[in-house]
């Protein structure tokens, strides 16, 4: 239990493998999640860029730390067509919820194989396991990246993330430590068309047994009931704020969101009044989102909220106050009572979907 006072700066550079690693993730049902495919494809792109930059081929390895009970449903070979050369599968009863055990296993594997780069999703899982593993490996980690690329010449990983509230983009490098680690926001990389016939090796690494042993015991995991939707699911996010005036106002938000296949967001005051759960909070103290369309209803636009959504492609806002700050970052501003505006909008959208022959 000693704090290691000196990082092993530079020590690895002599023995870094020409590999990019991805920590993948399976859902409660045991199936691989979308970010596992996104990041595999993203890593493939980085490996190809790095290969041509330093003129040596680079491989892509995905590490999966899976719950032994559902691991059979994961199908690690499915990652091959998206760019994985190898998949290392570790199964244990304590995984993936014992974050420290996941991190110890990941750090052990990465410490042995010495990949140049190690990335994971900026999910609850990735955001716990990656910093723990980074500290064990005594290397740097950049949180919540929205862009990764290879710097020509140096071959270093350029990590771009929103900083100071999402209105400044910082580009970060990890010049002297390996692996260069980053957690990456969902949808940063697109899932490409699969390339069939790519060979992929599925390996079960041998591990010292004590790595799996933890001091954490899972009592239960209760999935949220469907219907409410999650925040980051869709191309569109519909958010409500204090202007809804009552908790039931979110029924209207949810109705519009479900028509659009959108995520449901909320401002901090709406969450503080318990109208919505914290996972839906958009802003500095909640989630930062950047959908193609963000619809803000009854949200005045405190800086703390704006910082969480202003990089959205298009912003539509509805507010009674003609001077609402939210209008300053909006593309379309409708000044009026949301209880008048939103039902009419829903009506129009339903008509439009009907006209296209969609299932309304």
């Amino acid at each position: 239990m000693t704090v290691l006072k000196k990082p092993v700066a530079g020590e690895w550079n002599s023995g870094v493998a020409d590999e990019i690693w991805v920590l993948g993730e399976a859902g409660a049902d045991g199936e691989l999640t979308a970010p596992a495919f996104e990041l595999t494809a993203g890593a493939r792109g980085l490996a190809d860029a790095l290969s041509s930059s330093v003129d040596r081929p680079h491989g892509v390895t995905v590490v999966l730390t899976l719950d032994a009970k559902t691991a059979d449903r994961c199908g690690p070979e499915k990652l091959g067509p998206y760019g994985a050369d190898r998949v290392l599968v570790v199964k244990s009863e304590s995984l993936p919820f014992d974050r420290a055990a996941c991190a110890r296993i990941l750090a052990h594997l990465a410490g042995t194989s010495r990949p140049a780069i190690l990335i994971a999703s900026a999910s609850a899982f990735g955001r716990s396991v990656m910093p723990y593993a980074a500290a064990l490996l005594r290397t740097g980690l950049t949180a919540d990246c929205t862009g990764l690329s290879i710097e020509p010449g140096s071959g270093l990983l350029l990590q771009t993330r929103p900083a100071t509230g999402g209105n400044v983009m910082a580009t970060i490098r990890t010049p002297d430590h390996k692996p260069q680690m980053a957690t990456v926001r969902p949808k940063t990389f697109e899932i490409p068309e699969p390339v069939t016939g790519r060979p992929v090796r599925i390996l079960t690494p041998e591990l010292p047994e004590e790595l799996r042993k933890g001091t954490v015991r899972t009592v239960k995991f209760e999935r949220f009931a469907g219907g409410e939707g999650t925040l980051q699911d869709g191309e569109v996010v519909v958010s409500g704020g204090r202007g809804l005036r009552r908790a039931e106002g979110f029924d209207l938000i949810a109705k519009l969101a479900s028509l659009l296949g959108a995520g449901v967001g909320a401002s901090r005051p709406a969450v503080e009044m318990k109208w919505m759960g914290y996972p839906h909070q958009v802003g500095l103290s909640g989630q930062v989102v950047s959908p193609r369309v963000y619809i803000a209803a009854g949200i005045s636009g405190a800086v703390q909220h704006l910082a969480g959504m202003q990089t959205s492609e298009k912003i539509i806002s509805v507010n009674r106050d003609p001077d609402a700050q939210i209008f300053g970052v909006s593309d379309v501003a409708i000044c009026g009572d949301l209880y008048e505006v939103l039902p009419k909008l829903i009506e129009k959208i339903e008509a439009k979907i009907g006209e296209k022959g969609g299932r309304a």
Partner: protein
Amino acid sequence: MRIAVLIKQVPDTDDVKMDPERGTMIREGAGGVVNPLDLNALEAAMRIRLAGDSVTLLSMGPPNAEEALREGLSFGADRAILATDRAFAGSDSWATSKVLAAMLEKIGVPDLIIAGEKATDGETGQVGPEVAALLGVPVETRVTRLEKSGDGIEVDCTLEDGILTQRVQLPCVVTVLSDINIPSLPTLAGKKSAYLKDVETLTAESLGFGPDEVGLDVSPTRVVRIDRPEIARTAEKFFAKHEEELEAGLNRVVEILSNCGVLRGAPE
């Protein structure tokens, strides 16, 4: 049980103004406050403590972060320690965690270490798990319920898709979300006693670090570029009280949504 709460002083975002040209926060003039989630962490500590338990506040920051610790003391914490040293400047999350872990070892690793899930300025959320790793103890993140259970604790962690309930042995690091509690207000008596207490300070040297073992020099990550994406937008404004304007506004919204290809109908 010995409890530690990690505190960070951050700019007051309720106070802060936005530079409309550059889209950045104007930090000058904004007061420093305790990171909001750290107040939830402190409240969680005060609620789980029993008679005889101690609560110690720890922070790394500039000398004026003492104010944040003093605010923390006014909620009833027993002791507050600030690590402050010019040599700490430019620390990234790893370099910060190194100092916090060294502070925790210096006072003897507490049974329970509680922190906010992330700070409103840096927003990395990495310090909690990194401190846990450096101490070699388990970590629970996104905690929204914290209770004693036997020799250890039981927590609910609010994940993206559900609630995870776990039992953990101590010592352990826990990072909390705002859902865990509503922080109480400091009492007048608490404020008075906070001003009678000393905020202890530690330097790099007193923590056993050489000058080249902390701060920017040992931070593995380096910011190489800052870009300010164009965010100022000129809204097309529609007033709903004029029926034709509302109609035009709604049509514009439908057009935008249609261009994004999301008007396909909801799956059943």
